[in-house]
């Protein structure tokens, strides 16, 4: 029998992609469609004193302008319902949306943006997550800037220190980055005569978009249809609603199809990013290279809203000990609000930050002990039957085999002995 599994088959739609026939979000078009634009906050943290859209509304060619008052349910979020679709009394970062406009041309929509009058009362901003944790730091939501604290406790960390011959400490930090899909966010909404709302969008999770739209617009799910176009890259950045509520509301208001494409600048300023992390590691080892204790304290800059910040941090904490057998582990992760860009989902979801931190830290420990970094890893690597600090016992763990095969590809600095398990 021939098998289809394991065959090197090219993508099913590659022929459309290479001939320019694949229809992406940015390619959507309808006769008579309107073009939308979003007004963003001019300040990182401020009270909204006045919002007047009269002049924009009166500009010829403008079909509709929406503000917070037009959103039936102006709140969203995954673990924390802390984010408005359009700002109400306050703005919390430079990407906060204040109003959205639909006009007969992109030019008119852009011009109308400048005619919206906003009066702000600036509030002190906080941009450093460590400072934001101080009790007297300006507050972004409610009483505390610490949006969540995640804990992992495994074994007995004090016992671990007492059994260690050597203790190594490092602080490592990672930067904020953008998904930078080459296709920006782009979508088109249309409403038919029966009131059926259809959104064509370049996204990763159509069913989440649909349920969130249903809650925000207060329209039942059977009257909302989300269809995914060809997607020009996602990487987690197209994981949640962004523009869809605006264009749906504008389409409902005008009865016309409405399209919105973010500019590259909006992609950077107003969509989610990879969270910057500050990771403090402390590890205890025996002279022979056996890891016996590891403590990690992680501070994640959430930005202005939690979005996927808590779930990202929790995945980071779960993997905070790295791919090693360590009997005593203590991990604390803090998610902290600031007036920076919102951290969201991005390929690796917290683990790239921790992966950088624990692997550089691991090399540092190996050096202190005078052991080759590969040998040190082999000595402590997870194997079949090992536990993670969650207590979960792992079944299939070909970690040493990946080490062996990586070495086979480009070699290593020294010969190492591969035990049976690694084969």
């Amino acid at each position, binding site marked *: 029998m021939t098998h289809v599994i394991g065959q090197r088959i090219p993508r099913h739609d*590659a022929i459309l992609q*290479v*001939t*320019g026939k*694949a229809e992406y979000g940015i390619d959507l*078009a309808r006769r008579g469609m309107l073009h939308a634009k979003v007004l963003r906050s001019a300040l990182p943290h401020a009270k909204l004193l006045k919002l007047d859209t009269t002049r924009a509304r009166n500009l010829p060619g403008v079909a509709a302008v929406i503000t917070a008052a037009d959103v039936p349910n102006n709140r969203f979020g995954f673990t924390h319902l802390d984010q408005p679709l359009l700002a109400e009394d306050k703005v919390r970062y430079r990407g906060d949306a204040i109003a959205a406009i639909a006009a007969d041309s992109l030019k008119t929509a852009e011009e109308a943006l400048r005619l919206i009058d906003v009066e702000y009362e600036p509030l002190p901003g906080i941009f450093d997550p460590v400072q934001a944790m101080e009790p007297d730091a300006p507050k972004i939501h409610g009483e505390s800037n610490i949006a969540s604290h995640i804990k992992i406790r495994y074994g007995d960390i004090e016992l671990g220190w007492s059994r260690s011959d050597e203790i190594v400490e490092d602080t490592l930090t990672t930067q904020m980055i953008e998904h930078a*899909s*080459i296709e920006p966010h782009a979508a088109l909404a249309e409403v038919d005569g029966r009131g059926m709302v259809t959104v064509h969008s370049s996204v990763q999770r159509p069913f989440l978009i649909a349920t969130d739209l249903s809650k925000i617009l207060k329209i039942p799910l059977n009257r909302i249809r989300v269809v995914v176009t060809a997607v020009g*890259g996602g990487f987690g950045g197209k994981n949640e609603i962004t523009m869809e509520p605006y264009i749906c509301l504008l389409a409902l208001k005008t009865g016309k199809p409405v399209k919105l494409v973010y500019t590259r600048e909006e992609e950077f300023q107003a969509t989610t990013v990879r969270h910057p992390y500050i990771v403090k590691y402390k590890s205890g080892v025996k002279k022979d290279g056996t890891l016996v204790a590891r403590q990690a304290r992680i501070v994640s800059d959430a930005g202005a809203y939690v979005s996927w910040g808590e779930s990202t941090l929790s995945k980071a904490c779960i993997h905070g000990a790295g791919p090693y057998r360590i009997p005593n582990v203590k991990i604390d992760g803090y998610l902290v609000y600031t007036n920076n860009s919102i951290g969201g989902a991005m390929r690796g979801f917290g683990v790239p930050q921790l992966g950088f931190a624990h692997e550089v830290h691991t090399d540092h420990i190996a050096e202190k002990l005078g052991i080759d970094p590969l040998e040190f890893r082999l000595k402590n690597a997870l194997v079949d039957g090992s536990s993670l600090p969650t207590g979960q016992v792992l079944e299939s763990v070909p970690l040493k085999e990946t080490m062996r095969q990586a070495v086979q590809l480009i070699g290593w600095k020294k010969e190492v002995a591969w035990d049976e398990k690694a084969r």
Partner: protein
Amino acid sequence: MIERQIELRVNGQSFTILVKPQDLLVDVLRDQLGFTGTKKGCGTGECGACTILLDGKPVNSCLMPALRARNKDIITIEGLGTPEHLHPLQQAFIENAAVQCGFCAPGMLLSAKALLDANSHPTETEIRQAISGNLCRCTGYAKIVQAVKAAAQAMTQGDGNP
């Protein structure tokens, strides 16, 4: 703003259109003429998604006023080959999995075509140089480079029709 009537030659076909001096070629191609195979990823000349060939040379159409493309031959991805008659580069991109999301592919293919037209036996470095103005966030470029090599080989062996 004054509109002017101009003629654009795209993929061997002539179009008479009205353009304003500031209208960019990428928008005219996509929005007025429907050549949406030309993509737009930045609008600042950095990503290369909008690459077209102008008299055989790769150009970022997001930086070029449409007026300046008068009396020149424009090739867009639609002019490179069709699903029925693929250019060897397109064939090689498919077979080598050089496309993932595919958004960079039109620009990438046209930059590669300009290279192969000028140099039928490019080295790996020459290939990397030729596509260095085309950003790809998905593939790591490995399979793209491999595809261009494969196409070059196919074309010089004569089993392709450039």
